[in-house]
């Protein structure tokens, strides 16, 4: 009698345990499925976001500025050159007087040209970007000053006053004021500003820059190789390296 009772209870226990086991197994399978779902969800999210960001980086890089070969023309008599003409280290800048980034680089370049005076040749070339409404007129002003032998002074004035004239509807009047400040012959300056000779020079600058493959400003070339210094020290170390190579 007792035995039968014990048999019964152990049978019950076994059944209960089996049920428990079954339940545990189902729960584990469910948990596994959930985890798998979760992992695939986040993998998909990471792939999607990563792919998107990678695509954008590729898109940003696709502009010729970082991949195309530049055909930077050698220094000619047409160029505006500062510094030693005998130096073999040549720094060429393609710039736009109205471009804010060029304005930001202006003090750096000025510091470089004064520090390396006599040791490097600095060439300033114009690339007036079409979206800058006063860029071409600014170049004309610099060339009009050049006719009176004061290109670099006007170059400095244009960069120093860039925020005042950049979006102005009366930039010409401002340029004439700068000419007056530089003690130029203002009548001559004003008439030169619109002379066909200067207009042609400005247009030719643009065409030359496009032909060279330039598509952004400022673009710096050190002995023909593009450099993109982010600060003064980077600029300096690039030039020092080049000077050492020529020593």
């Amino acid at each position, binding site marked *: 009698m007792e035995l039968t009772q014990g048999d019964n209870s152990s049978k019950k226990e076994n059944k209960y345990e089996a049920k428990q086991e079954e339940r545990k197994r189902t729960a584990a399978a469910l948990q596994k499925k959930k985890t798998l779902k979760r992992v695939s969800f986040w993998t998909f999210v990471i792939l999607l976001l990563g792919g998107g960001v990678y695509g954008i980086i590729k898109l940003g890089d696709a502009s010729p500025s970082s991949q195309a070969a530049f055909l930077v023309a050698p220094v000619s008599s047409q160029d505006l050159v500062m510094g030693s003409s005998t130096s073999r280290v040549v720094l060429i800048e393609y710039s736009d007087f109205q471009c804010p*980034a060029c304005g930001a680089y202006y003090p750096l370049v000025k510091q470089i040209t004064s520090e390396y005076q006599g040791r490097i040749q600095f060439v300033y070339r114009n690339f007036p970007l079409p979206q800058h409404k006063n860029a071409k007129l600014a170049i004309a002003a610099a060339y009009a000053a050049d006719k009176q032998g004061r290109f670099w002074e006007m170059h400095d004035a244009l960069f120093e006053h860039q925020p005042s004239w950049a979006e102005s509807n009366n930039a010409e009047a401002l340029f004439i004021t700068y000419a007056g400040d530089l003690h130029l012959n203002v009548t001559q300056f004003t008439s030169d500003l619109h002379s066909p000779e200067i207009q042609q020079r400005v247009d030719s600058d643009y065409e030359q820059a496009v032909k060279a493959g330039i598509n952004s400003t400022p673009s710096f070339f050190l002995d023909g190789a593009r450099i993109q210094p982010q600060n003064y020290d980077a600029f300096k170390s690039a030039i020092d390296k080049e000077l050492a190579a020529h020593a």
Partner: protein
Amino acid sequence: MMHSSQLSTKSWQLTRNVLLTIGLVLSLIGFFDATYLTVTHYAGTELNCPLFGGCETVTTSIYSMVGGIPVALWGAGYYLTVLVLLLAYWDSRYEVLWRIATRMTMLGFLAALWFVFLQLFVIHAVCFYCMISAGTSTLLFVWGVWAWYERIAWRNVC
């Protein structure tokens, strides 16, 4: 009673899924837009600048950096945070994630107001991609208010 409660829970789920989708789409657009601005900032490439033409002026102005970090990168971080919070909510259904995401949109909206003000009245130039971001931030804020309103409305019913 049971029936109506089930019904409202179901309706809230539907509304929440609609809200979730909209929030995800908006933050994804904002994230890719801000990422594009960040990439061009660090690559130094020129922006392809439609409509207003003021991208360069805006993205190189002194207001384009906050704490030494470009505003675009802050923006990308903001959108990515909202996006990840919403995705994590979708995955886990932790209410707190949803609450943080919807409340965060207020920050984005305030930043958008400030940067639109700067473009129009201080820098006097408008950058297309920055305006897209201002648009997504504003819509996300509207979305956040809507989400908050819906949550309260459904909570009262349930």
